[in-house]
């Protein structure tokens, strides 16, 4: 295989949820030794799918206009559904064309780098998204050191690439180092030193192969990005790679935790946020073996950074660490709290969901071609001029909105009461009532600037109800 056969990164985006759990809060609650730093926490209305959508939106918003996405690959260890493709919800929310494939790579952290490699080696333009909600038992290392995040990479050859894949290498081993039965929520691990031993030789083998394929000098890599759930093995691998030359990127785990399948993408995004044209970046993942992907950064990275977006550093800084540990446990289903004396929310029914898939997943409203009025949700009869069936689609997900009025609902069911319901007016027309999220009820006011975000409203009768909410526009956005 030659270098020309590998594709490049056309665009990328990362997503870190708004909430952080202070590790001291866990220690205080459980009387455990104090940790330090924070972990990123998916809100009660987020999961791997919804976060993948958010990362995908950032990547696609920054992509060159007219880019045709041929497929989406979704890597996660925390899939919201089994027996059903999760990537189809991402496909729908990102309004990808029907011909585009949607593929789940579900199970191990290794899927994240496997998906990148498949896209790098495969034909066409692929969106690779990886996302994870990492949980552990209360008081466990996984709980404390885990994190929740998503990352998306648009990979292909059609268009100017920000960075090109120049070499890939892999080493595979069957080893019981970390595992989980499909029916379990938390993982099991063998003794820590064993994993370190199992991975020791694999990373140098994979790196050597990748460098060989790239056809570059052994010391050509400027920065190694080393990820994996096994902290000791990652540390040892970083040390081994340092002998090739190049430095090792900061691993983000102090501020956001180890985000599992999302971590290779998140760390690569952080590295690309800072990389200089001409640099070679080596992405390494240790999971049931070792994957190494080498990328050479192109001049286009400079212009890309000038576009509106959210760098990883900005999103790390925008986190809110006020989350109480008990709230965290409630959100993850690890603290079974007394529900309100209200009916459970009704699960969405599949037939109306299918009929309204563009609205529900894509937030596509309608605009009347007779009078120009935009209406949410999609209508057949114009609210203003009563024209019938003269509508064109009006995608609203990326349209800015302001709060026209709002209320704090302490009666209606929510996993995280109270519900903040807001009447939104969209820029350019359109009004819609929806829930606000990632918000302190005290900060809501008429005129608040908000943006739409894809969420899992609730799960009822085994059905995840995905739809859009609004969140305050915070400083991190350029």
């Amino acid at each position, binding site marked *: 295989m030659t270098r020309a056969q590998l594709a490049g990164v056309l665009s990328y985006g990362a997503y870190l949820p708004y909430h952080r759990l202070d590790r001291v809060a866990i220690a205080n609650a459980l009387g455990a030794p104090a940790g330090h730093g924070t972990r990123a926490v998916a809100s009660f209305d987020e999961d791997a799918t919804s976060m993948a959508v958010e990362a995908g939106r950032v990547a696609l918003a920054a992509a060159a206009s007219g880019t045709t996405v041929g497929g989406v690959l979704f890597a996660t260890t925390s899939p919201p559904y089994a027996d059903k493709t999760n990537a189809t919800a991402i496909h729908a929310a990102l309004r990808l064309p029907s011909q585009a494939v949607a593929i789940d790579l579900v199970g191990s952290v290794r899927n994240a780098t496997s998906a990148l490699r498949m896209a790098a080696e495969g034909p066409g333009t692929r969106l690779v998204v990886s996302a994870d909600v990492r949980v552990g038992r209360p008081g466990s290392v996984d709980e404390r050191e885990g994190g929740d995040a998503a990352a998306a990479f648009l990979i292909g050859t059609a268009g100017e690439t920000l960075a090109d894949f120049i070499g890939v290498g892999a080493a595979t081993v069957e080893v019981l180092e970390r595992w989980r039965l499909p029916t379990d929520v938390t993982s099991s691990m063998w003794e820590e030193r064993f994993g370190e031993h199992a991975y020791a030789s694999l990373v140098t083998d994979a790196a050597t192969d990748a460098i060989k394929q790239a056809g570059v000098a052994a010391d050509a890599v400027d920065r190694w990005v080393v990820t994996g759930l096994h902290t000791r093995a990652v540390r040892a691998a970083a040390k081994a790679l340092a002998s090739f030359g190049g430095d090792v990127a900061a691993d983000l785990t102090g501020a956001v935790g180890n985000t599992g399948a999302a971590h290779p993408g998140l760390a690569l995004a952080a590295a690309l946020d800072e990389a200089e044209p001409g640099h070679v970046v080596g992405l390494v993942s240790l999971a049931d073996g070792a994957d190494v992907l080498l990328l050479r950064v192109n001049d286009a990275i400079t212009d890309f950074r000038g576009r509106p977006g959210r760098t990883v550093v900005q999103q790390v800084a925008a986190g809110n660490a006020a989350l109480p540990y008990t709230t965290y446990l409630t959100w993850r289903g690890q603290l079974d709290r007394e529900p309100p004396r209200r009916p459970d929310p009704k699960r969405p029914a599949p037939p109306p969901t299918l009929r309204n898939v563009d609205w*529900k997943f894509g937030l596509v409203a309608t605009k009347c071609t007779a009078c120009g009025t935009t209406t949410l949700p999609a209508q057949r009869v114009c609210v203003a001029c009563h024209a019938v069936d003269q509508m064109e689609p009006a995608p609203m997900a990326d349209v800015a909105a302001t709060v026209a009025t709002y209320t704090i609902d302490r009666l209606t069911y929510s996993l995280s009461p109270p519900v903040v319901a807001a*009447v939104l007016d969209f820029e350019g027309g359109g009004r819609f009532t929806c829930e606000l999220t990632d918000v302190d009820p005290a900060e809501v006011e008429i005129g608040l600037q908000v943006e739409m975000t894809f969420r899992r409203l609730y799960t009822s009768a085994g059905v995840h109800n995905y739809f859009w909410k609004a969140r305050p526009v915070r400083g991190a956005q350029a």
Partner: protein
Amino acid sequence: MASNGIRDRVAIVAMGCTAFGERWDKGADDLLIDAVGEAQQSIDMKPEDIDAYWLGTMASGLSGLTLSRPLHLDYKPVSRMENMCATGSEAFRNACYAVASGAYDTAMAVGVEKLKDTGFSGLTIGTPENDGTVVEMSAPAMFSLLAPAYSKKYGVGEDELKDVLARIAWKNHFNGARNPRAQFQREVSRDAICAAPPIAGRLGVFDCSGVSDGAAAAIIVRAEDAHRYTDKPIYVKGLSFVAGPANGPIDPTYDYTTFEEVVRSSRDAYTQAGIIDPRAELAMAEVHDCFTPTELVLMEDLGFAERGTAWKEVLAGTYDLEGELPINPDGGLKSFGHPIGASGLRMLFECFLQLRQEAPADRQIASVVDGTRKLALTQNLGGQPGECVSFVSVVGSEPSA
């Protein structure tokens, strides 16, 4: 095309109304039997003397069998009506039209709701299968949107408005304390009302109507036949009902300070009844005080106050039992309680009692007693601000000259 009305063509000759409240002792069947029985027995009418029935219930039973089964009615037409919180009014309206048309000599409108068997707090409403994209908001949350919008539009401070809303709740509790059929027969201080923890927005539990069980019934006959049944028939002057276009939640020009449906239905009813100045002509009104901000806004929509001034009228006591235009002298939805399908008929029941001077002495309307006013109004709505159905009726104790 016109809304012509049926002014003075039909009359209410008898009514019944159960006590409202947490009626653990009564099922919907019992409540229906009691309300129907009270109406019939008051004029010695037998079930076979009623030609047709209109039964209103939101969710306490399906079809006319809900009424015919417990009463074992003998092959009579029973229509089952549903129009959310205006369900009882809708049953009444259709029964009136049936008699006015000449199709039947006598008709009965009955409303019932059994809400307290669900085990849930507050009202719960089933919805059709859907795509899960409508925000889950409780009823108090939907109506709480009126308060900050009113504050902003008319420059009334939020604390001052809270005091105004407490004054409305205080009045309706005061009136309910004089009503032995009411769910809450206790006066509540304005301080206690304000001190209740918030449920939605700034609304506390005392800003909300009572969730209750109950039933009410009315017997309607042709006006010319009315005196065969009673010396004091109550004549139907105007009936108006509209379903709004449901634009409010999706139209950026809607400002949450009015119910256009109420404006339209009240103007129509006033025209039918020949009313020019409702505030000066009506002896009383029963309005849909599902939540305190609703009653405030209704005062303006019904023409009982100029726009932006109802809050001052509330504080001035205009709508008190002894005020210029008593509103909800029976305690309203707030204190009498709100069994959905029965509420519209319960409102008429109070008009019926007051205009016949049969209300308890401590809540009789002075202008009726002294004979200066002879008209009463009911206003009943279902839905939410910007998207509702509204009913308005005007009834009177004398036929027009």
